């Protein structure tokens, strides 16, 4: 057996053996180990966040001002926020309802079976499938010369764009966003569905409950926090999305992320830089509130369905 070498570190594993000063030295050495991480995160995460937060309140001359925040009350910016919220809310609800349905269909199948694993894996991929690639997928499907468009026009005589080219505006965004919202819901909501024990249904039945009363009084209340939380997560996801809209929308900046792009790349109006930061701050506030609510709802779910 090798001789044990007594080093200060080894002593640090046994608190109380050395005096307070010995422990202090060991602790400083421990802290050194995480310096690279914290330094990196400070430069590339904390500082940019501070740039946004502080910049939102900075005037062009460098002093403190609320003018940027006030400028957020301009009609076009409020409308952009409004459209962003509408887009996020609608796609969150659609994604939540259909995603929950799909997740329920999965949970009734054999637990380790091929169907469930395949659909879960596919959901994992499709939830990430956003941005440019998704935009082009939909252009190929229902764009002006897309697969479905051609079929509708040539074989059924229906022109989907008779009322205007909606694919590249808000309605199109809603359709396209749903494509990754539904799989995301499946991924996020499925664990909660798994947490529903068969004994609860059987107990409810033996006590005289029907399928209806089971869902209203047992499964419904148990799943509600997770369902709401997941919907909120979908909202935050849609609200933050940029790439899909950037690739689809060619005219104007209907939603806030595109407005921020405009502010960043604009050379026309000076002072737009800090306005962009104010808009960014607005976005962060919305997302932070939503994510906090989500975290609170998750805690309730974990207590009941873990």
């Amino acid at each position, binding site marked *: 057996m090798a001789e044990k070498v007594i080093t200060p570190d080894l002593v640090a594993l046994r608190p109380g053996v050395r005096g307070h000063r010995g422990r202090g030295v060991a602790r400083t050495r421990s802290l050194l180990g995480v310096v690279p991480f914290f330094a990196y995160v400070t430069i590339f995460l904390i500082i940019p966040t501070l740039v946004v937060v502080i910049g939102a309140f900075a005037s062009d001359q460098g002093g403190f001002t609320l003018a940027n925040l006030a400028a957020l009350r301009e009609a076009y910016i409020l409308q952009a926020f409004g459209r962003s919220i509408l887009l996020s809310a609608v796609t969150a609800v659609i994604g939540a309802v259909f995603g929950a349905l799909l997740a329920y269909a999965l949970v009734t199948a054999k637990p380790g079976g091929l169907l469930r694993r395949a659909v879960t894996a596919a959901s994992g991929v499709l939830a990430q499938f956003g941005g440019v690639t998704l935009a082009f997928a939909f252009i190929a499907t229902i764009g002006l010369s897309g697969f479905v468009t051609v079929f509708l026009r040539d074989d059924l005589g229906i022109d989907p764009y008779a009322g205007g080219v909606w694919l590249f505006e808000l309605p199109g965004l809603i359709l396209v966003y749903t494509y990754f919202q539904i799989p995301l819901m499946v991924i996020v909501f499925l664990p909660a569905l798994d947490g529903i024990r068969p*004994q609860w249904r*059987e*107990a409810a039945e033996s006590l005289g409950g029907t399928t209806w009363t089971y869902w209203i009084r047992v499964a419904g209340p148990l799943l509600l926090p997770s369902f709401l939380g997941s919907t909120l997560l979908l909202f935050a996801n849609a609200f933050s999305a940029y790439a899909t809209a950037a690739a689809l929308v060619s005219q104007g900046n209907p939603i806030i992320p595109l407005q921020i792009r405009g502010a960043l790349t604009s050379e026309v109006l000076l002072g737009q830089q800090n306005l962009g930061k104010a808009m960014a701050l607005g976005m962060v506030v919305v997302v932070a509130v939503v994510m906090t609510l989500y975290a609170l709802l998750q805690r309730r779910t974990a207590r009941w369905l873990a």
Partner: protein
Amino acid sequence: MSGVAVQLNDLRRAFGTVHALDGLDLELHPGELIALLGPSGCGKTTALRVLAGLEDADSGSVVVDGRNITGLPANRRDMGMVFQAYSLFPHLTALENVRFGLRLRGRRGGGDRAAEMLDLVGIAEFASRYPHQLSGGQQQRVALARALAISPQVLLLDEPLSALDAKVRVQLREEIKRIQTEVGTTTLFVTHDQEEALAVADRVGVMRAGRLEQLGEPADVYLRPVNAFVADFVGLSNRLPGRLDGEAVEVFGTRLPLVSPGSAGPDVIALVRPESVDVTPDPDGSGRVLTAGFLGPMSRVTVAVGDLVVIAQVDSGRMADLPPGTAVRLDLRPVPVALDDAAPRDRPFRS
């Protein structure tokens, strides 16, 4: 409230090639507690679930209080059920859990009855706690209260104590027996723990491979097992070679009466309980103590006799005389024994 009679007639249930129930016939007298005992996969839980309506039998019938309820869905069967785990609804307090069945029946409130039930199971002070704030034993008490609150015709307990600590298990089974006697509901109690079954039941049904091997009072099943499986599963048994001699078997020089007449022979295996084996230190004895294990009030001693290892139960006070290596003499008490039948199963014998 007095109990009702329950009959399970020739129940059969197969999952592919596995016969979970293979012609099960069981009758529960009004107000009695029958424990279904057996190893995993013997069909005892399936039998309970068929009675509850949570599973369909392939053939056979279920009759409760004279009514054939075989086709009736579970929620119309008026039975109370306690599960092994996850019995309670996590989003409701103990009181609300107990009230659940009452509210479904339109009793707007039912709070009084629920509180009364919680008191019956000894957990009234935890009425406003949530399941995650209760211990395992407390949860099962609430589950019992919930099942009884609706005044069911039959009470079904599916291994209710198996997930609990040993000490809680012993405590709670006494409670269950007390409550069941007081309320008087006909009860089916499924367990794999033979000690539990013997302690709690009015009658014990030992099951194997979808059929009843023996149904009788605990003492009967223990002292007069009809075949080797029952003798082996309920309590410990020594397998000792002997000679069949008319209506008795001779083992280690002692004639032991038989529980039921033996057919094969003359060389047979007799199943002898440890407490029927007396161990006495004897320098001329043919046995030698191998191990001596202290178990509290009684102790267990294993003795080597030739190639055999015999387990004997010994009063703990005598352990000092029987350290490992001691030469001993084995005497068997003339208590009826069963024979090991290596041949196909006997027909189930009811006492």
